């Protein structure tokens, strides 16, 4: 019997994980989403500095339409709506991201632990997240925020974060349950790894995409919630955000007064941010599950110039004759 060494001819596979990570950014949807998100993040940082006016500052231009001086027009107090939207971006982004981070951390703690541990502890945690899942978010938030004495941006963010982790926890638990049975987790255990290390180093890294998409989902949720709360008048008191702008527009019956400019910019900003976040999420989804990838071209040109669509069950045929350069048939 011969021991055949398999070394030497191993085909080196080119780029390491780097390329895999980059592929996410290469996804056009994710790119567009990230660019828009970056734009909003930038505005969140520099918004208050570049705002042409104090967003609460009154002027004598009462309720004026968009003009060179006031790009988005003014309010009934002569406040500059453009400045309000610019300054309001920070609160929106802070709430979105702080809530996202808090909820994500909680969902990881609850979800992964309850997924990995077996037995009563796991059941309790799972029941806990189910209870939180059953509690309706918006009404709960209305109650909680309307009862907190101080509802600054950060408070709102924390409250949203503390109440919206359940969905993520449920998804993570399911994922962890499936990962727990994976051979590499068992193998790590057989090697003698501690449970904590298994959770942190073997399971968590493999949940990155799920966590990321949960994070983005929570950000969308938190942003919408903050704006909604502000719109019905129980959001962050003193801070400007897009919801506050809309709240003022609504309480001053802007649309009835014909002051469309008071409503439209903030609404579009919300929709745009929401879209950007959704796009990032699609990007993550497609990254995780390659089947969803649009995969660039799906339409193929055949040799005789027709266009056919790739579809399951009917493989396109580009040319029905054997290729000439293949082999000559004498």
């Amino acid at each position: 019997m011969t021991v055949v060494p398999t070394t030497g001819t191993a085909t080196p596979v080119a780029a390491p994980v780097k390329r895999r990570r980059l592929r996410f950014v290469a996804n056009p949807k994710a790119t567009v989403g990230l660019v828009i998100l970056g734009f909003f993040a930038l505005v969140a940082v520099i918004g208050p500095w570049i705002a042409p006016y104090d967003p609460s500052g009154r002027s004598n231009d009462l309720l004026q339409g968009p003009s060179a001086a006031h790009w988005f027009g003014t309010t009934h107090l002569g406040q500059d709506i453009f400045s309000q939207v610019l300054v309001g971006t920070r609160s929106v982004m802070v709430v979105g991201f702080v809530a996202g981070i808090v909820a994500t951390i909680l969902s990881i703690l609850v979800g992964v632990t309850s997924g990995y541990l077996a037995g009563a502890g796991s059941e309790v945690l799972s029941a806990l997240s189910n209870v939180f899942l059953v509690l309706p978010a918006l009404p709960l938030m209305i109650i909680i925020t309307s009862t907190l004495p101080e509802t600054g941006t950060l408070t709102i963010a924390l409250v949203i974060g503390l109440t919206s982790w359940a969905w993520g926890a449920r998804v993570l638990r399911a994922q962890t349950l499936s990962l727990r049975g994976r051979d590499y987790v068992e193998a790590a255990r057989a090697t003698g790894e501690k449970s904590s290390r298994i959770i942190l180093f073997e399971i968590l890294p493999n949940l990155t995409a799920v966590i990321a998409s949960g994070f983005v989902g929570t950000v969308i949720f938190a942003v919408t919630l903050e704006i909604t709360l502000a719109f019905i008048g129980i959001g962050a008191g003193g801070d400007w955000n897009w919801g506050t702008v809309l709240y003022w527009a609504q309480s001053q019956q802007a649309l009835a007064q014909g002051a469309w400019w008071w409503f439209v910019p903030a609404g579009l900003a919300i929709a745009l941010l929401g879209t950007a976040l959704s796009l990032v999420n699609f990007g993550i989804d497609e990254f995780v599950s390659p089947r969803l990838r649009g995969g660039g071209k799906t339409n193929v040109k055949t040799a005789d110039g027709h266009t056919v669509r790739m579809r399951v069950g009917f493989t396109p045929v580009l040319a029905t004759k054997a290729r000439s350069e293949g082999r000559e048939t004498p």
Partner: protein
Amino acid sequence: MSYLLKRIAFYLFTAWAAITINFFIPRVIPGDPVQALITRSRGQMTSEAVQSLYVLFGLDKDASLVEQYFTYLGQLLSGDLGLSFTYFPSPVSQVLGDGLPWTLGLVGITTVLGFLIGTALGTGIGWRRGSWADALIPVTTFVSSIPYFWLGLIAIALLTGPDSFFPASGAYDNGLVPNPDLQFIGSVLRHGILPAFTILISSMAGWILSMRNMMVTVASEDYVTVAHAKGLSDRRVMVSYAARNALLPNVSGFALSLGFIVGGTLLVEIVFSYPGLGLQLFQAVGAKDYPLMQGIFLIITLSVLLANFLADVAYLALDPRTRREG
């Protein structure tokens, strides 16, 4: 069988936990219904009224939170939800009875419709991946990112008016009495169209997307390829092989969303002044009307649980793998 038993135990536990949370949260917070009532009236009610209101609402007697809790649980078990403060002394059950049908009618029907239409569209788009239909996805994403209330307000601003077919608020024409006659039903339908469309447009996108993604995933399953290989018609493969299986994961999502009807579309009810539970809840919160809040939360919780239970049952019916017999 044990599956259902286990689920039922789970539902009971969750219901209990949610009810308990619903009880405590409003109570650990500052403010009381009397203060809220006085504050809201902004001088239209004299400050002397405070004492009489405490007496009226029965808040002048001190009862510990725990005592109150057990009284509440006891009442709940006997089906008594207490008296509302906002509409004192109307029983909460009566208040809920006024709001629930509208919420179920408008929001319930549109949520179901949104799911059905969204799923149908998602099926088509997912099946014909790569065709023009894909262009719908970015559009629906954008539309679904618009908050409900904004869409509703714009719709009201653009489409309603003195001569418009669409009324701006309410559930039926003023002066009509709910009665199963043509005039009333016509009026209800007319009032429902705009809010219904708002909900449809915002909620459909999610279903389109998840169904499309599931279709794409399922379409590359072997059994779909086998169905093609069997020479079945395109329709049959799409409906009976791909969509039928792709639907399964959406069932539980749909159940959850059914439960969120009340909470989720509160804004639609506010914007369109639709006399449903959402609007009541909003008012109850403002008025510190614990009994009413609790009542509405109870309904929400029970409906989420019921929806989940139905989803479980539907799952049993739809996915034979969960049916373990023998």
